[in-house]
């Protein structure tokens, strides 16, 4: 079947109205925090005041006597459930057991009739601690004789679709990943030029405006949880483990989610909320504040020692890196972050000799986990900084240097993984053109272009059901979570395109693990590619059934029928799908089911599902007096195969780039000793309206080269990854100052400029 091209689609490839638009502009959109169940009680958490301490005793008797208090949970009264969870490493107790591992770790939960009673009773919970020496940074954690964050080893979690974390030995090393091909030592020995440096990627907070919230109802028929989770099926898996329930007894429902950006992936407060309900025998709501959310998950901050070599012709010959990730107190998704950081440090380049050692390291800090683009963000900054550093050594334009080394479509950048499925040379040419790099720069201005390639899509296990009704309407049952990225709109478009119905006739339902078929997760930019393809295939499967029914009605063979946009034709007769269903069943309100599932076979056998491309350009202005960097111009490329919804791809790209801007210029969680200094929105600076660049170009590339519907592939993370490197490289171009530590705060820039001036003065005299 020939594939439709842009311009030939009815619904897809158009920026249609958002499916959730009316609900969201009228205030009718329901988020988990809006849900209230009959008889619902409220939980509040007592948090550890120490980064590392033994819990000597917990006395909840006085708290239990407080007005309105129903139950108090703590590490000593969780008998009857398995209190540990974790999809990669089962190391995370739902409340601290025996000891606390970071300042802010939940130690006790008070369940009461209302939030205030729960909150007020917290101070009546008596906890005796014996403070222990802690490890707050990776060097301290790796030192000989360092205190151990975890004294015991743990079983691996289900770790879906990736390497087994291996046997966990008692050390502060949570996960090691090693990657090697070619002969790195020989390549460096023969190299024409080498650059080497240590780069720091900051500890950052994703700041979903809606903080974590979940509501649990544990009763005789099982467990129902409403949550702000990105991955309801993985939450279900972990809950089933904690309570020893069959999967079909655990129902996880995710209504609208107020931002995720990876921070709501995997399991967070759901096991604790469910335990509160189990103990209190009531539905229980646990709503965290933003300040508490900042004590729940962050990204892995990284120190990357990296060197890169080129030959005389300016071809990359080797890259060697040691990556230390500060994983915090629990593994969460950091083992996978480590794997991805190692994979993604190669970038979209042909490098014949590579050696990477990546280590995720436990410390007594807030647990680190997924954050939009994870792995790629941490390593694209050093990787792409070094591309500019090498270009300068070679007296080559940084763009030319990249062009020379970019892998072409179909070329392998990583042995064992899928060859590159994008045209990066084309992408970079578009950025260069939009950025007008040929025009002279004003004083104090700098421009840069950078790119990245991420092995994206995660484990391709996805399924869906499409109901086709006799009145011409269609429902898509999806386990994908609507985080604002527009998944429900895109899936609706695909179903409308395939079934030949108006957009308004398609309803998207889910996720609800009791109703919607299995989907591994909503992350790694997978939804359009995988769930979108599953929806397309489910529609096609329904159409085959409808065609067979039509053949029976028309008393002919199915292959004699001509498929039309929303029905079949045979000789002079035409039957719409509506006609087919009504005639076949003799009822006007019946329906059939089309279904599809994807797994790691066929064209999805080789990972990644697709390479997610980042290709961005910036122009900045640097104020030499204050050190402040202003973004003057931003160019992004959404290399998405086919933009099912062009405006939403642009929205993802600008949103991602803006997060890159935040991390590049402002955002950093700071510790002083064991205390998180800026764990609130007042002190943690996220991009505001005034940070918007005056000129923005959001470009789309539609080469239909993905494995998703109509050749689509994912986006949404790519435009974040190269932005910090773009900023650092543009700063260098503007001022000659090379900074290897993010964020590029005014103070850092100002100090570097002053140092440069002082050096210059010394040379001058």
């Amino acid at each position, binding site marked *: 079947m020939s594939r439709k091209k*842009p*311009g030939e689609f009815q619904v897809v*490839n*158009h*920026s*249609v*109205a*958002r499916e*959730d*638009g*009316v*609900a*969201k*502009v*009228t*205030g*009718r*959109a*329901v*988020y988990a*925090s*809006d849900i209230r169940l009959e008889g619902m009680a409220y939980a509040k958490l007592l948090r550890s005041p120490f980064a590392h301490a033994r819990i000597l005793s917990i006395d909840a008797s006085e708290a239990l006597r407080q007005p309105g208090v129903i139950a108090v949970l703590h590490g000593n009264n969780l008998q009857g459930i398995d209190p540990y969870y974790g999809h990669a490493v089962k190391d995370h107790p739902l409340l601290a057991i025996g000891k606390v591992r970071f300042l802010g770790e939940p130690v006790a939960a008070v369940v009461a009739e209302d939030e205030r009673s729960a909150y007020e009773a917290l101070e009546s919970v008596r906890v005796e601690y014996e403070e222990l020496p802690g490890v707050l940074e990776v060097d301290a954690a790796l030192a000989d004789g360092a205190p151990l964050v975890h004294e015991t080893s743990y079983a691996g979690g289900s770790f879906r679709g990736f390497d087994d974390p291996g046997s966990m030995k008692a050390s502060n090393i949570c996960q090691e990943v090693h990657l090697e091909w070619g002969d790195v030592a020989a390549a460096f020995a023969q190299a024409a030029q080498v650059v080497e440096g240590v780069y720091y990627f900051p500890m950052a907070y*994703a*700041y*979903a*405006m*809606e903080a974590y919230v979940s509501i649990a109802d544990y009763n005789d028929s099982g467990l129902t949880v409403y949550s702000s989770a990105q991955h309801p099926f993985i939450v279900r898996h972990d809950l089933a483990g904690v309570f020893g329930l069959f999967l079909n007894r655990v129902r996880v429902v995710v209504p*609208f*989610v*107020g*931002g*995720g950006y990876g921070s709501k992936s995997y399991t967070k407060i759901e096991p604790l909320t469910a335990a509160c309900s189990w103990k209190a025998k009531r539905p229980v709501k646990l709503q965290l*504040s*933003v300040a508490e959310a900042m004590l729940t998950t962050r990204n892995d901050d990284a120190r990357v020692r990296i060197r890169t070599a080129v030959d005389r012709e300016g071809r990359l010959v080797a890259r060697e890196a040691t990556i230390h990730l500060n994983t915090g107190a629990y593994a969460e998704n950091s083992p996978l972050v480590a794997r991805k950081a190692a994979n993604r440090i190669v970038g979209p380049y042909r490098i014949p000799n590579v050696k990477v050692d990546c280590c995720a390291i436990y410390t007594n800090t807030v647990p680190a986990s997924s954050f939009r683009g994870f792995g790629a963000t941490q390593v694209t900054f050093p990787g792409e900084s070094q591309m500019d550093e090498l270009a300068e050594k070679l007296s080559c334009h940084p763009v030319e240097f990249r062009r020379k080394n970019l892998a072409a479509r179909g070329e392998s950048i990583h042995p064992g993984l899928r060859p590159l499925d994008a045209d990066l040379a084309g992408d970079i040419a578009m950025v260069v053109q939009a950025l007008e790099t040929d025009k002279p720069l004003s004083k104090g201005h700098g421009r840069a272009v950078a790119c990245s390639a991420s092995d994206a899509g995660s484990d391709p296990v996805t399924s869906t059901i499409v109901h086709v009704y006799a009145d011409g309407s269609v429902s898509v049952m999806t386990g994908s979570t609507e*985080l*604002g*990225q*527009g998944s429900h709109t895109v899936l609706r478009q695909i179903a409308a395109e395939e079934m030949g119905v108006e957009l*308004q006739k398609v309803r998207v339902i889910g996720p609800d693990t009791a109703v919607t078929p299995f989907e591994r997760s909503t992350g790694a930019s997978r939804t359009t590619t995988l769930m979108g393809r599953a929806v397309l295939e489910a529609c096609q499967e329904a159409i085959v059934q409808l065609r067979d029914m039509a053949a029976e009605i028309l008393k002919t063979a199915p292959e004699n029928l001509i498929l039309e946009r929303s029905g079949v034709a045979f000789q002079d007769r035409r039957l719409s799908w509506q006609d087919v269903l009504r005639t076949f069943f003799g009822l006007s309100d019946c329906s059939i089911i089309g279904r599809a599932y994807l797994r790691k076979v066929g064209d999805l056998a080789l990972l990644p599902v697709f390479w997610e491309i980042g290709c961005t350009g910036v122009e900045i202005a640097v104020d030499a007096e204050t050190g402040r960097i202003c973004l003057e111009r931003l160019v992004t490329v959404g290399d998405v195969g086919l933009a099912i919804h*062009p*405006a*939403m791809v642009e*929205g993802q790209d*600008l*949103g991602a*780039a*803006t*997060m890159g801007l935040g991390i590049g210029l402002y955002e950093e969680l700071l510790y002083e000793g064991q205390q998180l200094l800026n764990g*609130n*929105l*007042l002190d943690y600076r*996220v*991009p*505001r*309206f*005034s*940070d*918007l660049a005056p000129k*923005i170009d959001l470009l*789309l590339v539609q080469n239909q080269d993905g494995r998703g519907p109509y050749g689509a592939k994912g986006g949404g993370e790519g435009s974040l990854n190269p932005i910090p490197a773009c900023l650092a490289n543009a700063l260098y171009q503007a001022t000659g100052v090379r900074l290897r530590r993010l964020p590029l705060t005014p103070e850092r820039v100002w100090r570097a400029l002053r140092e440069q001036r002082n050096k210059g003065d010394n040379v001058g005299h």
Partner: protein
Amino acid sequence: MKVPVEITVNGTRHRSEVEPRLLLVHYLRDVLDLTGTHVGCETGLCGACTILLDGEAVKSCMMLAVQANVRAVETVEGLSVEGELDAVQRGFWEEHGLQCGFCTPGMLLSAHDLLRRSPQPTEEEIQRAIHGNLCRCTGYQTIVKAIQNAGDKMRAGKPSAASSSPSTRGRR
């Protein structure tokens, strides 16, 4: 101890007995069940809880319910009239000025406050006016366009009742 308050919300007068410490945002959400106004940072920074108080944008997490006594509050639920979206709502929908939607109610009311004062705001004015509202999804550009679009609609008169959904935009 509870105190009586009389607060007009979206044109309807409500009499309630509330604790003096009750925040206005919790009054709206928990007492009146108007959950369109969102609780974000609870420190007055994010703007997700923005409402109109006597026509002016305020952050309802920074006020007590008793401070709104005998005053008029407008929330996102009061914007559409007889099921028809108003110009600002339509602007945000048409220009994709939202993604996750959590900031949207506050943005809509801040936009109303601005457009009342300045019907044809420049981009700079919009930036200044909405500086107290954060959005982590969009990167703000579409929100600027949404507010300009809404201003155009308001100046053109009543929003067209012809269609209840934005037109399909062609491929660009």
